């Protein structure tokens, strides 16, 4: 199934005539299970609630004036892919058709297949896996979505700020949960937090498994300042707050959650962005939507700065582009792993409680680099 959106302004293009067009293709999974109605309606924090195309389209529409003024254009196509092979084929076809940049809302393996199949840069809109920024990094892969490490570090900093240093860690059964729990433990170590207990949990009504499934049993024994729950699925985590034995906050995948965006963020012009999104798509703007929107803004920024292109110039500029994502700071891609350095928001789902990096934390060059992999770690060997 193909859908095409010409986010260009035909009248303007006809007038300008010679204006160069930055072509971009967004590749998304067909029949995306994350967006099935029953899941999307739950709106677990940190999960998408609608297609990535929405955010990109909004940014292109907003960029109209800037593009018109510069005499340039951005054209977006969206392709749906059934599987890894289809995603790869879509990427190859897009490159052949002249796409200067690919946008991908794909799982890690698909994303790597897409990136390795083409020579154009790829913007990652949703894969948080740290391996994509380390052992499996690629020189042309740019991560707009924050890594697991960035999110875990943001929460760890916040806990340090609150002096909630003793944590009970609850980890779900999936492979993703196991991996993410390791990231959480690394973040706790980095910021001097202590895991006073670590237990697996499981969604189950089986009385023989009640030790794994019952929040009261899971949270009894020992003292802790907060419960950090790692639940990639989201259903268990949602039921955990107010069900702990001790009256302690829940953080991680429920309770207090680190995210790239929340529609209730009040600073730096953020309400206007969220309101425009809501107006256009009748749902609150999530972190995934913001990420897609910012990727669209990146395209607009590239096209407006160099209206005549060519594609090579845009691709060159991407690594150095400074982006305004209405979070009060300029954001750019890290030279060492292609990750967008950015402020993260801590939300309870109702509002934005705080921001990370926390005030007072120091870094030799850019305080945003206290979140996620820093240059000295040399985890990504692909030269940029």
């Amino acid at each position, binding site marked *: 199934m193909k859908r095409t959106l010409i986010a260009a302004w035909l009248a303007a293009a006809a007038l300008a005539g010679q204006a160069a067009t930055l072509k971009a293709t967004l590749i998304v999974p067909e029949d995306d299970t994350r967006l099935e109605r029953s899941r999307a309606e739950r709106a677990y924090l940190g999960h998408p609630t609608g297609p990535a195309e929405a955010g990109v389209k909004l940014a292109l529409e907003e960029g109209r004036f800037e593009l018109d003024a510069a005499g340039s254009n951005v054209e977006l196509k969206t392709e749906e892919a059934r599987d890894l092979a289809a995603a790869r084929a879509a990427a190859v076809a897009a490159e052949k058709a002249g796409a200067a940049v690919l946008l991908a809302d794909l799982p890690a393996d698909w994303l790597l297949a897409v990136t390795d199949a083409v020579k154009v840069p790829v913007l990652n809109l949703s894969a948080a896996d740290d391996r994509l920024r380390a052992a499996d990094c690629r020189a042309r892969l740019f991560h707009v979505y924050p890594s697991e490490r960035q999110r875990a570090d943001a929460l760890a900093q916040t806990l340090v700020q609150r002096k909630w240093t003793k944590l009970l860690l609850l980890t779900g059964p999936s492979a993703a949960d196991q991996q993410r729990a390791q990231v959480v433990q690394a973040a706790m170590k980095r910021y001097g937090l202590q895991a006073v207990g670590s237990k697996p949990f499981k969604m189950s009504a089986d009385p023989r498994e009640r030790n794994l499934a019952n929040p009261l049993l899971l949270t009894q024994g020992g003292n802790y300042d907060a419960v950090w729950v790692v639940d990639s699925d989201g259903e268990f985590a949602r039921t955990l707050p107010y069900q702990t034995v001790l009256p302690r906050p829940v953080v991680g995948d429920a309770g207090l959650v680190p995210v790239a965006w929340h529609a209730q963020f009040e600073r730096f012009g953020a309400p*206007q962005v969220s309101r425009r999104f809501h107006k256009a798509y009748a749902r609150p703007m999530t972190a995934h939507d913001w990420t897609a929107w910012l990727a669209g803004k990146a395209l607009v920024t590239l096209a407006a700065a160099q209206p005549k292109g060519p594609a090579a110039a845009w691709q060159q500029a991407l690594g150095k582009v400074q982006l305004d994502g209405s979070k009060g700071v300029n954001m750019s891609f890290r030279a060492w792993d292609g990750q967008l350095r950015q402020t993260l928001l801590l939300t309870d789902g109702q509002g934005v409680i705080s921001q990370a990096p926390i005030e007072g934390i120091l870094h030799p060059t850019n305080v945003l680099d206290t979140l996620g992999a820093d240059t000295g770690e040399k985890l990504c060997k692909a030269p940029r």
Partner: protein
Amino acid sequence: MRFAPLAAVAATAFAAHVAVAGTAYISSEKDDALTLIDTATLAVKGTIATCKRARHVQVLPGGKQLMVACTDSNAADVIDLASGKAVRRVALGDEPEAFDLSPDGKVVYVSNEDSGEVSFIDAATGKALKTIKVGEEPEGVKLSADGKTLYITSEVASLVHVIDTATAKVVKNVKVGKRPRRMAITPDGKELWVTNELDTSVSIVSTADHSVIGTIKFEVKGARAEDITPVGITMTRDGKRAFVGLGRANHVAFVDVAQRKTTNLVLVGKRAWNVALTQDESRLWVVNGLSDDVTVVDVAGAKAVKSIPVGRVPYGIAIVE
């Protein structure tokens, strides 16, 4: 506590120097009110309730009334200064943020933040005379002294739109720094100064051909470039000096206009944004958006005199003497 009497003495000494009876009106976004401060004693005199989410505030021609634009009321309140009462409400279109007035006070030019428009409004009736589509999140609005040219910043498009008020058409889009906010025009009318919040800078635009003829980058010791976020700007009447609120750098910069160089930096409150000078230009008032106060700065000594708590999320300021 030990230093309190000294501070009081200092304040009195300054008060003696600028003993002009006057009032500063500070709008605050979160409590729908103006806070009134005596410019001589620097004491809060009271508050005036306004429309919802009060933002830009400006004295109307004649000096007897003040207009405050309210984003959530889609309107402005006109407040009679003598009685301290709102005398009428003028519709300003969707989500008005900042405005300027025609020299005769008959037309309000206002940025409509959410719809990405500029509206020309009949000040008497609130009727929209013209609506012009501009870049998203239009913010600062500045009219040339002759009333013929209107300048609007778009925060998203990083443009200054130049609009001919007679035809209500955009005649030029000027690319400036990232997230342009507020503007000032030199008294000779030749230069438009634009603050760029995410570019650590002020862009200087020639009003003759609308080209960018200069850029002033700000530096503050101990602050990184990303924490220097200029917003508010004003100039002395002789056009020799400009004052720029540096946002999260918590300083206000004094700039030599001819040299285009920062001469002084004064530490004020958190997220210093809009600024205003007293009539005799001896003092600069700085509105601090994150510390919920205003800082009064002695211009000659380049030193903060006093910070005064006001409403929640203070935004704009107008001084009447």
